[in-house]
């Protein structure tokens, strides 16, 4: 027999992968800062400048004020907790729902409409109702996160579970695989890349959900969304810009973490 040749894959360390993934985002942030400066100094007249103080002033004032930053970071932590818990619940529910749908054509036909309805109802219309039913604190915020991030988990997981080729299914049929074996050894592994795609989308939405929840449900310790509202009402522009920026950074970090996780796990999974 001959000596076959293999296409060897380069192995990148995880950290480098993460950094390489983050680089474009960092670049984009720098671009945004440039636009910000441009608008502040070139577009706005000095009298209007309070509407958009330059970044160094806005952040400088806020960052130098521990009385402001302490509560702000606490609030950000609480929002982060809501987002993460909401995301975890959405992942479990979404994957479970998709697995059930993947098991028969009629289950899919029966259950998919609910997922679509969930997706098409404007979430903001539901939020007041959630408040009335669940109160205006932590659980309600988590529920908003779950509802907003559930659909991409369901849709992507289902797509992945159905992505195995007909031939692969034939292989399992010929070897008399049980339904469970087919799910665990074929459908689910085939779905892993799609599940990560769903996770990336859902994680971003979950952050949005947490902030929306904060915004509407102000009972108990505030989240960053609650503070955003407060700063807006009080016209605290420095604090407002710092809070917005922190929130944006938080979203970027979450997205970058999941993008890196996606590349690392799926890459390894497929021996890339």
């Amino acid at each position, binding site marked *: *027999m001959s000596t076959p040749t*293999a*296409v060897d*894959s380069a192995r990148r360390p995880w950290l480098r992968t993460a950094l390489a993934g983050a680089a474009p985002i960092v670049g984009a942030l720098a671009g945004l800062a440039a636009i910000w400066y441009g608008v502040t100094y070139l577009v706005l007249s000095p009298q209007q400048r309070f509407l958009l103080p330059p970044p160094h002033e806005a952040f400088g004032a806020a960052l130098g004020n521990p009385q402001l930053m302490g509560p702000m970071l606490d609030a950000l932590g609480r929002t982060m907790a809501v987002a993460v818990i909401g995301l975890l619940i959405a992942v479990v529910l979404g994957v479970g729902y998709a697995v059930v749908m993947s098991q028969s054509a009629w289950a899919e036909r029966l259950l998919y409409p609910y997922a679509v309805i969930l997706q098409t109802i404007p979430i903001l219309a539901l939020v007041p109702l959630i408040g009335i039913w669940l109160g205006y604190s932590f659980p309600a915020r988590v529920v908003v996160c779950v509802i907003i991030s559930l659909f991409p988990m369901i849709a992507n997981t289902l797509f992945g579970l159905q992505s195995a080729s007909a031939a*692969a299914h034939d292989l399992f*049929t*010929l070897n008399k695989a049980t339904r469970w*074996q087919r799910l665990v*050894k074929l459908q689910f592994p085939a779905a892993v890349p799609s599940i990560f795609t769903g996770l990336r989308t859902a994680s971003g939405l979950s952050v949005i959900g947490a902030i929306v929840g904060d915004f509407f449900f102000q009972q108990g310790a505030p989240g960053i969304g609650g503070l955003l509202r407060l700063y807006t009402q009080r016209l605290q522009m420095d604090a407002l810009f710092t809070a917005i920026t922190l929130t944006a950074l938080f979203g970027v970090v979450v997205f970058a973490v999941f993008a890196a996780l996606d590349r690392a796990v799926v890459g390894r999974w497929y*021996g890339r």
Partner: protein
Amino acid sequence: MTILPGNFARADPRRGTEENDLTTSTRALAVDRVRKSFATGTVALTDVSLTLDAGEFVSVVGPSGCGKSTLLRLACGLETPTAGKVTTSAASTSYVFQDATLLEWRTALRNVELVDELRGAPKAERRAKALGVLELVGLAGFEHHHPRQLSAGMRMRVSLGRALVAEPELALFDEPFGALDEITRLQMQTELQTLFRLKRFAGLFITHSVSEAVYLSTRVVVMSGRPGRIVADVDIPWDYPRAPELRYEAEFAAIAGKVSAALGQHA
């Protein structure tokens, strides 16, 4: 060698339709006057009869869409005939798909292990078996490579390994080398022939290459265009192992010519 007219002779004992049950102990597969039509109205096969004994390697050639894959799927029970009967005595049947159909997330070793895993074999046992098979198909040293890291030829070797690990009495091949480049293809033919000599499963091999069919087989069956029926059944005389140079001999060319002629008449 027999070239049959459109209505094939029923006198030939190998495909005698009256006693097409698995009467002989060596009979691995009997396809008896099978017709297959699909819900779409497509008639894929009409009146197809074919028997396959242990130790035989039968190739089926025919125009694209004439029902060759359907015949294989009937042989292993993935499809049921609309009329007629398919019987098999094989305790174990393997199926090699056109594209290697490997699980991309599993290494070569774990792809080969899959069959025994589904049967619930103990891990140590199935691993040892899979390692042995991978060596047999020339993949020693590539056990831990993922399909993506292997060339097309190597992926097909993994697929052959996965078929062999089931210790099949009946092995079905659906144009397994169709997508390979010429050089790899010739090499794989030689190796499959070696494996056949070693394992002596009953082989049913679909191909659209006449030379591949003649080189590999003990018999070549020619099918007509859709709806498929068997229009010729050609015995191949040579023993195994067959040298690669056999392909360039006059007798080989003569037999291949006859197969091609039957194909051309009924395309």
